[in-house]
């Protein structure tokens, strides 16, 4: 019935000719489309070139320095090609973990405050402060760490370094966590409160799990960002060729120290980090150190890449889990 009606319409409707020069216009459109599509393709490739160039160049230059000793031994002194950068790897891990511990809990609480009380003076000040803080040069934050921790304590330390890094990380965490918490339907919090839940339990058990994938991305990106920082560490953790957590733990046990005492002792040491080592080694006249510096650069890039991949993997897995 419908087909019949349609075909009737088709045969009775006069076909207008000559107003739209379909063929000519089509060719022109195709040419323009092809041209601009080509331009965007070329530009995309151009934008990717530096990225792969840097990674490829560092990989090629750094690969010869990579061997087991590179990851397991301390530096053997300037001019020596043997030995590794265990001190810097352990230092970077220690600084990153500690700074995360210092920055994540207050950052998360601040984000909740900013979302739940956006129009109070404290909420406004918090968001404004986070924006300002994210624009402060990292070397200034290093100086701040020096004045706050190093000067009163009288020595450089991992503690001072990680506090400086935590300050650097704080605005990233606050702003990403705030955005992610804002995305959680208000309905969810209302549902928990309607059951008689106190605000903190609703936030911790309902809102936080709903936002956790995004918040974790923020954490990991923040950690990745600070694990590549050099400037704030120059004034705070200084560097330490002999830093080796295993040795410090052994020495601590031998002298009968308890676990918290050993931990305290470790974070009071000046520590090295990968970016600091990279900076120091490139200042040296010895080819062995230049070679090792390339190796350090490679390890650093791979480390940060791994953080990013982990963040993305986490997000996709959590999203799948919430969908069920």
């Amino acid at each position, binding site marked *: 019935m419908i087909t019949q009606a349609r075909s009737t319409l088709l045969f009775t409707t006069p076909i207008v000719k000559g107003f739209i020069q379909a063929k000519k216009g089509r060719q022109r459109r195709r040419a323009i489309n092809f041209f601009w599509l080509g331009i965007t393709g070329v530009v995309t490739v151009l934008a990717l070139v530096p990225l792969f160039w840097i990674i490829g160049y560092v990989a090629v230059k750094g690969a010869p320095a990579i061997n087991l000793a590179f990851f397991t031994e301390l530096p053997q002194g300037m001019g020596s090609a043997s030995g590794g950068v265990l001190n810097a790897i352990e230092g970077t891990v220690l600084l990153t973990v500690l700074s995360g511990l210092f920055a994540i809990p207050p950052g998360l609480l601040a984000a909740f405050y900013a979302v739940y009380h956006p129009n109070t003076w404290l909420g406004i000040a918090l968001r404004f402060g986070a924006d300002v803080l994210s624009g402060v040069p990292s070397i200034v934050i290093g100086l701040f760490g020096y004045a706050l921790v190093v000067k009163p304590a009288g020595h450089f330390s991992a503690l001072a370094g990680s506090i400086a890094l935590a300050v650097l990380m704080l605005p990233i965490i606050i702003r990403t966590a705030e955005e992610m918490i804002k995305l959680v339907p208000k309905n969810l919090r*209302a*549902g928990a409160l*309607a*059951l*008689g839940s106190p605000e903190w339990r609703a936030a911790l*058990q309902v809102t936080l799990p709903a936002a956790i994938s995004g918040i974790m991305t923020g954490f990991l990106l923040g950690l990745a960002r600070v694990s590549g920082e050099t400037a704030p560490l120059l004034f705070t953790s200084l560097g330490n060729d002999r830093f080796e957590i295993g040795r410090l733990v052994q020495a601590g046990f031998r002298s009968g120290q308890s676990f918290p005492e050993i931990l305290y002792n470790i974070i009071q040491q000046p520590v090295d980090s990968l970016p600091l080592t990279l900076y120091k080694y490139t200042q040296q006249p010895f080819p062995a150190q230049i070679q090792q510096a390339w190796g350090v650069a490679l390890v650093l890039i791979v480390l940060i890449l791994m953080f990013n991949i982990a963040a993305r993997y986490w997000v996709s897995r959590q999203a799948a889990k*919430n969908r069920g």
Partner: protein
Amino acid sequence: MQTISSTAGEVTSRELRQPQSPLVTIKGEPLPLTSSKFVLSDLAFYYGKVQALAGISITIPANHITAIIGPSGCGKSTLLRTLNRMNDLIPKTRIEGQVFLDGDDIYSPNVDVVDVRRRVGMVFQRPNPFPMSIYDNVSYGPRLYGVTKRADLDQIVEFSLQQAALWDEVKDKLTQSGMALSGGQQQRLCIARALAVEPDAILMDEPASALDPIATLKIEELMQTLKSSYTIVIVTHNMQQAARVSEFTAFMMIDQNRAGTLVEFGETAQIFTRPKNRQTEDYVTGRFG
């Protein structure tokens, strides 16, 4: 002797505190005071300087379904949220008048809001299962109130899901995420979650407006089975739904000051067939709204 007199005194004072609202009748018989769940007395509500509700006095009978209908923006949801103090969450709001729940003024300063919300559960317009398993969704409430034993929780979860007519559909996948269920199942999960804390009353804010007709029907059937144990107050835009499910209907409108007021309250059959008020008649017959 002393105990008896003090108990008697308490009852008297309770009756005195609870004001007599416009008389509610069931099939012509006045409703006994004890079978009223909520009594609202000259209630007014403000969002900042804007008055949203004015002069609302109403007695909501226990163990029945009461529907609140009226055009958009007349304060239906606001009125509903005054019944479990959910409006407390909105900053700069203010309430005048009293709301009695079983004779207790829920806005008096010595009342614990947590206790009010345990006694008066709520189901929202959009299903809002928590991002956790079905089991954890239902046991969230009981855990808040200190139930920790696994066996007890198991029992509460099963009972609540059965009451919400969801048990048969989910009993084999209690550890799955509540968000993986269909919309209608999610809404019944939210009802089970509200039932798990053993409330006296359940408030429903357009519980079926985000659902398809079959899921809506299931929710409506569920309400009929629940009303023997719970007082249900439902806000709905859908007049057919109000006529189908409720036994009492409150019709609201905005007055000349743009504040929501109660126009008429009575048995649903009477409101829809023999409304006393002209505005009610115009609304239920579809002349406006």
